[in-house]
């Protein structure tokens, strides 16, 4: 008899909806593979689920079939999550070993050493993993700051507040950004083009002005003294704001004043 864990083991949620069709053994249909890889934390997690919930009989698994299918995933996965598929494959290999040992008659009179028993090793790992899984759930249930409780705080008197905060050198900031860019490049296939800084600053300025007033006219944003370059920057900033859906342009009728408003859901 299989003893069930008390209470419900968490059922995997895929994009908010529960996964209803679960694999009956370690074979995962290729089209469900990605879902499974996301729903389970790895082969141990999947195996644990199968044993606890589906009464999986490890010995009865058609290991040859699973192995063949796992091999075909690898081709499928080359671009995706290869290392994870490899981990599932290692699990399949381990099950194959267990099965082959079970099928072979053990030599008469020789007591099999517990330490050599791959089943014992697998079970040790499964239970160790299950402990971690349960601990993680218990940890998540502990009351946590800013989620379950809040720190009580009162405004400090002024002098107290004026203690020197950390200073930052401009070069540190630039370096930090440089490193970020380098890192982002290493990890992303394509480079995104960004607006020049002057435009981005003007975008912030426009949004800042819209915080105090519900709408602005174009002329509010063209500052005399900045000359043509200033007009161009303001114009580009407005276009970019509209493109990013941060602002809306409104004109009652042709030729009349154009207003800039904060974008709202219903505009």
């Amino acid at each position: 008899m299989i003893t069930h864990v008390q209470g419900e083991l968490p059922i995997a949620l895929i994009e908010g909806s529960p996964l209803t069709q679960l694999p009956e053994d370690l074979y995962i249909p290729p089209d469900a593979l990605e879902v499974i890889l996301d729903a389970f934390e790895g082969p141990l997690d999947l195996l644990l689920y199968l044993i606890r919930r589906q009464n999986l009989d490890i010995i009865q698994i058609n290991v040859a079939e699973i192995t063949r299918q796992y091999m075909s995933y690898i081709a499928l996965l080359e671009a995706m999550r290869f290392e994870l598929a490899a981990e599932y494959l290692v699990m399949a290999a381990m099950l194959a070993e267990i099965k082959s040992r079970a099928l072979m008659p053990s030599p008469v009179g020789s007591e099999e050493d517990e330490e050599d028993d791959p089943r014992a090793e697998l079970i040790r790992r499964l239970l160790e993993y299950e402990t971690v899984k349960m601990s993680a759930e218990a940890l998540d249930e502990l009351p946590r700051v800013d989620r379950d409780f809040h720190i009580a705080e009162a405004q400090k008197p002024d002098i107290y507040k004026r203690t020197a905060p950390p200073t930052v050198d401009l070069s540190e900031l630039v370096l930090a950004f440089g490193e970020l860019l380098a890192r982002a490049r290493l990890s992303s296939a394509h480079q995104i083009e960004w607006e020049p800084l002057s435009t981005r600053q003007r975008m912030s300025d426009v949004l800042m002005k819209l915080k105090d007033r519900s709408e602005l006219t174009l002329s509010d944003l063209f500052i005399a003294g900045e000359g043509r370059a200033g007009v161009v920057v303001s114009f580009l900033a407005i276009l970019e704001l509209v493109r990013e859906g941060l602002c809306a342009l409104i004109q009652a009728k042709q030729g009349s004043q154009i207003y800039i408003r904060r974008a709202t859901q219903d505009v």
Partner: protein
Amino acid sequence: MSDIGLKQILEGALFASREPMSIYQMKKLFGDQKAPTEGMLREVLASLAEEYQGRAVSLIEVAGGFRFQVIDVLTPYLANLTDEKPSRYSRATLETLAMIAYRQPVTRGEIEAVRGVAVNTQIVRTLEERGWITVVGHKEVPGRPALLATTTQFLNDFGLKSLEELPNAEDLIVTPAEDLLDQMDNQSE
């Protein structure tokens, strides 16, 4: 609201809030439930202020609303805690500030996308409290995330007249991916 009193709700909210709390925000505490009137709120606030008479904090009204404040006479004691030399900002904080300075106006999600790590609320708070960044609006996408930008104080503190004076960080990248790949290619030849 049955067993938790209005006074207790306001008291807790005032202590949880880092900014002064307006009457409008106090009404928001009640969500879909019927909110108390301004008159009721002010009445409870007055009685709360009275209860804190003689304690180490007092409830006061400032421009932005109401807040609890540590009484001034304690200043000399609190000052004893702060003689340590200023700490440094973490790398995460610097990178977040850099993202906001160079890519503003930007949402937290956009910063996270480039950094590849979740941006801790505390980091944004630290930079806001420092007066270097501010929320300039909200992006009209689900969740209406705040749009962050740097402030005039940021420019002042870094000795910049405008953002255009920020050095071009792309020049500083020591080993971009392409170079690394080039190196690998050369080695394999």
